[in-house]
């Protein structure tokens, strides 16, 4: 059996370099360096045309101006609320798919749950606008049923933003939950039942500990996507949306104040990263495992 001749070291190194070149180019030119640049941008201040000094002015503005940090806190709180609601809505469906429905029915239900998310978020938001606006379908239905005398405006409320965010996030919760619940052995639940466990105690002591990795993965992804969402809050919330990504857009594109926008961007990134880190710490999981699951 002929052995392949061992390649010369320089050749191997060249091949390895070529193989790694795309990855390094991608990660450094498009991820690492731009973020370093963004950080530098956020730590400077314009003192005269094309003259900048290092300063914390952008961050001072953020903490000094109540509008800015209130919008930041509001975005974080609403995102956390949307994540919790998504979990509540998604869990029974994931349970039904993983445990109650059988065979083809289960697969069918799963696919049916995924299909709306192949459609663009723009289209889904358009649907909600047609449903909820004052001249829309639901207000007309409410009048028709005699529940209200006048069509009511259902858009532009915080609750509307939450509905839109939960709707957009469902997929990212259902998929990791189903994967996790399917791996839970039914015999454990039966054993708990035989030992006198009731619905709640089984849920708390058997199901939730087992599903914790899936719950964490789903919550991390949903929180991050919600925090960074732009389309749903601005269209469903209108002028009242006060979402932090909108502030970043205003600074960067409308006001052309890139230094301020960069500082805002960094604060959002810091919050998002902190929540991801916290989620991993609390559940004791590794980042790479969670991302593969999600």
């Amino acid at each position, binding site marked *: 059996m002929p052995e392949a001749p061992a390649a010369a070291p320089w050749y191997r190194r060249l091949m390895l370099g070529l193989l790694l070149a795309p990855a390094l180019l991608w990660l450094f030119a498009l991820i690492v360096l731009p973020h370093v640049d963004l950080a530098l941008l956020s730590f400077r201040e314009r003192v005269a045309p094309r003259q900048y000094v290092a300063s914390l002015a952008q961050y001072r503005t953020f903490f000094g101006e109540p509008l800015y940090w209130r919008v930041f806190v509001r975005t974080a709180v609403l995102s956390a609320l949307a994540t919790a609601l998504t979990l509540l809505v998604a869990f029974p469906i994931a349970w039904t798919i993983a445990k109650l429905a059988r065979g083809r029915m289960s697969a069918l239900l799963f696919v049916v749950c995924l299909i709306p998310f*192949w459609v663009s978020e723009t289209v889904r938001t358009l649907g909600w606008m047609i449903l909820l606006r004052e001249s829309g379908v639901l207000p007309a239905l409410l009048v028709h049923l005699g529940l209200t005398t006048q069509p009511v405006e259902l858009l532009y409320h915080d609750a509307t933003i939450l509905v839109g965010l939960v709707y957009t996030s469902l997929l990212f919760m259902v998929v990791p939950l189903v994967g996790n619940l399917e791996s839970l052995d039914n015999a454990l639940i039966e054993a708990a039942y035989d030992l006198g466990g009731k619905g709640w105690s089984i849920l708390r002591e058997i199901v939730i500990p087992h599903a914790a990795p899936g719950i964490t993965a789903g919550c991390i992804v949903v929180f991050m996507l919600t925090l960074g969402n732009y389309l749903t809050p601005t269209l469903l919330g209108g002028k009242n949306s006060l979402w932090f990504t909108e502030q970043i857009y205003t600074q960067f594109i409308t006001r052309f104040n890139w230094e301020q926008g960069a500082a805002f961007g960094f604060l959002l990134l810091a919050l998002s990263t902190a929540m991801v880190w916290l989620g991993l710490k609390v559940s004791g999981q590794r980042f790479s495992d969670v991302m593969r699951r999600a």
Partner: protein
Amino acid sequence: MIPTLPRPAWLRAATALYVAAFLMFLFLPLAVVAVFAFNDAPYPAPPWHGFTLDWFLGNEAAGRIGLFRDSELLGSIWTSSIVALWVTGLSVAVGTANAFAMERAQFPGKGALSMLMLTPLVIPGVILGISILAFASRLAELCSDLFAVEADFLRPGLPLVVLGQFSYIAAIATLTISARLKRFDRTLEDAALNLGASRPAVLWTITLPYLRPALIGSAAIAFLMSFENFNTTLMLVGADSPLTIMMYGRMREGATPVLNAVSLFLMVASAVIALTLIRRGRSPES
């Protein structure tokens, strides 16, 4: 609880009711978008005025500009398609190279690199957009200061949109293709080499055909994600608007049902892609 345990009737009924309500919640927005694409009225709102195809076929003479006569919308679909093709090509190519690097090669710092490859997925899209925007204009300024060359492709526009979308879609392609390469039985390659095949021939006739489902799957996902991307694109877009940006602008102004028509077109297109992929995923050879 699970089917093998006794479940009270009310719980069964509640479960069925919940599933029904959930499905209605999922599909109601899509259904109204589709229905009002055919409403004979200038706004996508009730009441129903009768069936019309004006929002697809109408022209100026009819007083209604339908999808197929709306050159702005058609142009933005074209723009989105070009961007998506570039993003797909780049992501699948880079994703494949990354998969081989991570699964086959050994080098110092591999763990750190594989971690770094996942970071684009946890950076909000808006921030990917602004960081690339700021970095690109710094480079453009550097170009014009040092070499007196105007690097227009570094200014907001389609090349930046492609790079911005690619920056995180490449991570998804890498994950998808790596997962399949990891399950590959390497003795097949050894067998082919023993039988006298050259390395390129082994790659072309053994390894790549095995990877084909992952390549096709990640290409379809990359295309769809690029076509539907909004956050990153919003920050990097120049004069030519891709479809999502165009639709967003019109939705803020309160548009005619021509938007419903283009949405219906998108729904049908994504459903076709989704169902083809699911069908392929089920077929025994993959």
